[in-house]
Structures are given as C-alpha cells and as structure tokens.
C-alpha cells in the first residue's frame, strides 16, 4: 500500500470501529428526533380534530345557537361565494399547471371584467327602447343584455390576460421561478392603480336588469322561517358550475385541451410533437382571463359593488382555493373553491367564533389540509420534472 495517510480517509479496516460507536450515538439521537417528528403530525391532527368536534358539539348540541333556517342561509351564501372562488381559482390552476407560476395579477383581470360588466349594464340602461311604457334595452331584452354583458366582460378580461402574458410573462419563461412572480406582482399593482386612475376610486353599484334584481329571490320555508334563495345567487352558482364543467370537457376532450396538457407536462417534447407551445400558453391565458371576466361580471350582478380593489381579496382567496384543492387540478379548484366558500360562511358559526376571524379559519384549514395532504385535497396534477 502506498501512503494512505495522505488521503483523508479511514485506511483499510482501521477506524471503522470508532466510526461505528460515533454512529451508534448519532443513531440513537436521530431515532429520537425522527420519532418526535413523526409523532408530531398525528398528535397535531388528533388534537385539532378533537377540538373541532368539541366546539361543534358545544355549539350545535349544547348551546344550540342556530336553527336549521340559519344553517340553510349560511349554506346558500357559502355555495354562491364558493362558486365564484372556484371560477377564479380555475384561472390560477390553468396557468399554474402550464407555467408553474402564480399569476398574481389574476384578481385584477377579474376586476377589469367586473368593470366591463358594470359599464355594459349602465350603457344598456341608457339605450332607450320604445314601448308602453318606454323602457330601456336592459329591461326590454334582459337575457340578451346579460349575455352581451358577459361576452363583453369576458372579452375584456381575455384580452387583458393575453396581453399580460405577452408583455409581462413571456419574456421571462426561462428566468428563475421567482422572477415572473415579481413581474406578476408589479402588473397587479399597475393594473389596480390604472383602474383607480381611469375610473376613480369610487365604489360603484351595478344596475341589474329587473329579472335579476338583487335581493329578490325564491322563498323557501325552513323551520317556519323564510329563507330567500336569491336569483342572482342561483344564477351565479349555476353559471359557474356550467362554465367549470364546460372547461373540464374542453381540457379533457378537445385538441386545445390535449395541447395544453402536453405543454404542461413537458414543453420541449410537446414542441417536438408539433404543439405550438407559445400559442397554447396564450390561449390558456385567454381562457383563464375569460373565466375571470365571467366571475367579475357575476360578482357585480350578485354583490352589486365594483371598485378598483375588488379583485384583490377574491384573488388571494381563489389562489388559496386552488392550492387547497390541489393545484393544476381542475376538479380540485372547484372543490377547493366550494370548500373555502362553505368554511367561510358556516365555519365561524359552527365553531362559535367571530366572523372577523373567518379568514383565519380558512387559512388554518389550508395549513391543516396541507400538513396531512401536502398536495391538496384532490392531489396536484403536475409534471414530475418540475418538482
């Protein structure tokens, strides 16, 4: 053998014993460590679940705070808001699935859609239609007016989404992942302030057509008290579900859907297989923008309030919903949105906490779910490579 001491190694068969004793000590420590870490999660889970059950028992059985009528109202309100969250969340999920970036400006895209809807309805209200008594376009042809408003809102948002991708994200496709995120944040700030300067910071009310009057609705009697099922809410919920199902079919069945999935899996290979990656990404942004636009118009119809900041909070919530359901996963976004909506509306009541803390509750649910299912409720649909 030639001088093993020159190399920083244990020479043949010499020091293994010593290493072993060291290792043994280490081993014991690490066993303790890993046991602690491994037990931590289940213990946390049991404690939290027990607490939730305890609170539910207290509120529902012992205190019996709210009757079934209240619960029905809460459920309705949760489903409606959840439907809108789901629709916005789809935009995040589509973009995330294909580019692995958080499109932070998505809420602002929705906000512009809401403005487009607002102004469309105003304009329709101004257009006079002869009749007895003379009426306006909005109320003479309400269905046409609503369809037009949705088309305008979706077009505006889709266009915005398209240009957003083209200007702010496309040049950064090869940059480190945080760079497009910051670009998106910049775009979000820009769009918010642009809307503020263009349309003034005033809070505006949407003029609904008479048939979709806000506050009106079917009345059902639960537990001897009237529960209103608002028209706008039902409309919003049904339309969201229809759009989501439509999108799901599009992604599953159409050629564009296949191209999108291929691009999401592996851009290089997809390009080799003849998929136009750039245009697929553009179209993804157009679709997610259009959905956000629809969500914006619905938001206006149901909640009646539009201003430049209206997209920010739903944007954050919808992203939470997308992650909750499993990002990249379209049914996941839907489930996530609905779960989040219901948690927000029923959670505080069920656990007997202040409604002020509903966001705390929804984020805690998120943390809780992700602690046990790190890829969301329905699991993420992402390519291996990215991870």
């Amino acid at each position, binding site marked *: 053998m030639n001088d093993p001491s020159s190399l920083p190694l244990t020479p043949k068969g010499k020091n293994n014993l010593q290493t072993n004793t060291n290792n043994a000590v280490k081993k014991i420590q690490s066993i303790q460590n890993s046991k602690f870490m491994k037990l931590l999660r289940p213990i946390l889970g049991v404690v939290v679940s027990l607490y939730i059950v305890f609170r539910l028992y207290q509120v529902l059985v012992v205190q019996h705070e709210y009757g079934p009528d209240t619960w029905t109202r809460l459920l*309705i309100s949760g489903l409606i808001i959840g439907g809108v969250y789901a629709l916005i969340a789809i935009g995040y999920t589509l973009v995330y699935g294909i580019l692995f970036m958080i499109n932070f400006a998505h809420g602002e895209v929705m906000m512009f859609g809401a403005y487009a809807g607002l102004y469309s309805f105003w304009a329709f209200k101004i257009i006079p239609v002869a009749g007895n008594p003379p009426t306006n376009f909005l109320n003479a042809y309400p269905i046409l007016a609503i369809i037009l408003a949705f088309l305008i809102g979706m077009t505006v948002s889709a266009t915005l989404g398209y240009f957003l991708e083209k200007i702010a994200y496309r040049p950064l496709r090869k940059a480190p992942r945080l760079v497009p995120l910051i670009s998106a944040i910049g775009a979000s700030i820009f769009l918010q302030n642009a809307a503020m300067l263009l349309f*003034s910071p005033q809070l505006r009310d949407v003029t609904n057509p008479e048939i979709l009057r806000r506050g009106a609705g079917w009345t059902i009697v639960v537990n001897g*008290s009237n529960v209103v099922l608002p028209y706008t809410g039902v409309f919003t919920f049904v339309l969201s579900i229809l759009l989501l199902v439509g999108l799901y079919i599009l992604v599953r069945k159409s050629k564009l859907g296949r191209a999108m999935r291929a691009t999401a899996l592996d851009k290089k290979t997809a390009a080799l297989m003849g998929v136009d990656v750039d245009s697929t990404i553009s179209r993804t942004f157009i679709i997610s923008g259009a959905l956000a636009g629809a969500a914006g118009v619905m938001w206006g119809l149901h909640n009646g309030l539009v201003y430049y900041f209206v997209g920010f909070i739903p944007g954050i919530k919808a992203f939470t919903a997308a992650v909750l359901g499993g990002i990249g996963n379209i049914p996941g976004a839907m489930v996530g949105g609905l779960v989040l909506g219901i948690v927000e509306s029923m959670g505080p009541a069920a656990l007997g906490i202040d*409604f002020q803390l509903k*966001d705390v509750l929804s984020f805690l649910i998120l943390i809780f779910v992700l602690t046990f299912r790190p890829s969301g409720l329905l699991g993420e649909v992402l390519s291996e490579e990215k991870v």
Partner: protein
Amino acid sequence: MKAMKFLAVFMVLALLLAACGQAAATEAPAATEAPAATEAAATEAPAASGAPEACADALGCAVFAAGDVIKIGMGAPMTGGNASYGIDISQGATIAMTDAGNIDGWTFALDAQDDGGTAEGGAAVANKFVADPAIVAVAGHIFSGATAAAMPIYEKVGIPMLSPSATNPALTTTGSTVFNRIAFTDLNQGNNAADYIFNTLKVKKLAVLHDGSDYGKGLADIVAAQFVKDGGEVVIEQAITPGETDYTAVLSTVASKTPDAVYFGGYTAEGAVLVNQMKTTGLDKAIFFGCDGTYGEDFLTRTGANGEGAYASIAPASPDSEAKTKFNAAYLEKFGKEAGSLSPYTWAGYDAAAALAAAVKQVAVVADGKLYVPRAALVAAVRGLTNYVGLSGTFSCQSNGECNVDKPQFVVVKDGKWTNAQ
C-alpha cells in the same frame, strides 16, 4: 455592458426625479428666518439670528417672499385600498384653498401627500413636511395610525394639525399641543346613539356590528356598553371583514338572534352592503342604525328602497346651508363626482383646511414685502378655534384638541332622503 447601461439609466432617472423633488421643496419661500426644518431649529429657534421685529415667536416664523404660496399639508392615503378617503378629503380641502382667498396677495395651496394610511407613511410624510418651510399647518392626517406616528414629529417644530377624520380616542390623551380634530369623538356619538336607540326607538334587543377598524370598533364598543347600561340587551356583537361585498353569512347568524335593530360602526362601503343584504337574510324587519361614517348621499344611491328607514348620526349643522350647496356644486364641477360619493368626509376635509387657513389669516403679519407666519402663535390659534361654522358642524376646540363635542343629530332616510329624526 447591458448591466452598465441599465444602471446608468436607472441612476440618472432616480437623480432626475430626486432633483425634481428637491426643486419643488426648495423653490417655495426664499428663506426662513428661523429655519424650522433642521434638527437644530427645534431647540435653537428662539434665538433666531436677526429675526425681524415682525417675527417675535417662540418657534420662529415661516417667511414668504412675494409670489410664494402658503402651503397647508395633508397626509392621506392616495393609493391602495383606502385611496378613496384620501383622494376625496384632499379634493374637498383643495376647494377650501381656493375659497380661502389670499392675505395681501399671498395665496394658499394644499400639498397632499400619500401616506397610505399607515404609520410608516405618516411618519415619512410628516418628516417631509417638517423639511419644507412653506408648510405652516397640516389638515390631517386622515387615518389614526398615520396621525399617531406623525404627531410627535410636528410637535417638535410646531406645525398645528387639524384632522377631519382621525377618531382614535387616544390621540387627544397624549398631551399633544399641536393635534386637534373636528372629527366626532366616538364617546360622544356612541353614548348618545345608544340612548336614542333605547329611549326613543324603544329597541330592547340590539345587534352591534362593526368593521374591525379603529373607528368602527371604538364606536360599536361604546354603543354596546351604553345600551346595556340603559337596560337593553345586546344580543350579538360581531366584527365583519371590511372591503368585502358579501356579508350574508354574518347577517344570517345575526338574524337568528332576532334583534329589533342593528347598530353598525363603520363606513358607507360596508354599511350599504349590509343594508341591502339584510333584506334577504331574515333581518328585513330590523332597523339599521348607522353612524356618521355611513351618512351621505352615496348611502342613498347604493341602498335605494332598501335604505328606507335607516338611521345615521351626524354633526349638527344645517344639512343644506347655502355654503354647503355652493361647495357641492363646486366639487361636482371640479371633480366630476357628487360630494360625499367617495367618502363621508368630503365636507370635513373642506372644513379642516378652511379652518386652518382662517387661523393662518388671523396670525399672519406682513412686513417689508414679506409675509410672516409665526408658528407658536398659529398653534395657539388653531387650538383656540371657537364657534367656527363649517359645512359639517360648528367647532370649538377644547384644551385637549377635541373640536367637535356637540350632541349628534340623528337622521333617518325617508322617501329616499335624509331627514332629521325626532
């Protein structure tokens, strides 16, 4: 190479902008006899070297040469989620500056700076104003957080403040000599509102909501406490998340307690949504009782028929004085919006700025072609404001800086209009 180029462009741009800022800051008055801007000034000002006889003030004077403009500062959120308050109040104050006229040719101008409504922004703006010798007084700040951080900075150099909207009760308890406000104090408004609800409206079960803000929560807590003291029952107290447009969930839980009335401490933005959604959540028979934050034309347009029978409390000024009508017209002409449609504080913003201008007029001295505004005298003049009749009330400042201590007037929506309630 690219890096160099980029950096160069960036630096040049930054320098240029900074230069603009400097130019703007220094261009105004030619000199300050007692330089209030520097740190030294705060302590050495009285010894102001060669101060002319016109200026014999403990804190020195702001000096304006011919052609200079007397500036009144305002720190307000001009960007972000609360921008409508800042923009609206500063617009109201701008009109006050035009109406204030001039002192022997020296005109007034408003310098409204964005403080984002936060302490960080408030302190930044305050430091900027302190460095600008042309700023004699500050109509603000708008939010309590920014105000609290700005107060000690103005205190050092003697710039009086008159806030139209910072309602945090603690602001007037710190012994500040410069801070005054024409905003309603929560205590005064809240106690009276609770009494009114219990005694006049004969409400026995009250639900109390607030928007979680400094202002709304303060008011709601006081109302709840007083209502219980009066002998009523507060069935539920809930906070809502501001800025949202769907409160049906929280209203449903409120409805399950079957209150006779709902008191809300907060602003029109949320108040109008609440009123609208009360109808679909089983609260259609409960009375909505708001505060001065929910008062305004905007509330009427946003609630329509749903708003009928809603209450609010306002400062006792004649709701439609001649001056107010004139102001509303001017506001619409200039900014294209109905006064009060951006925030309920439009008129208060006008009042704060106008009252400050009046105080400046009171103490300013003209000598050898220059205008002197003695700072300590101005601070005293603002604190000494008595029976000043503004658009939003009549103000007399007390020794702690509270200038609006009248009993509130309660108003109710009747046939689509605010009318005085009995």
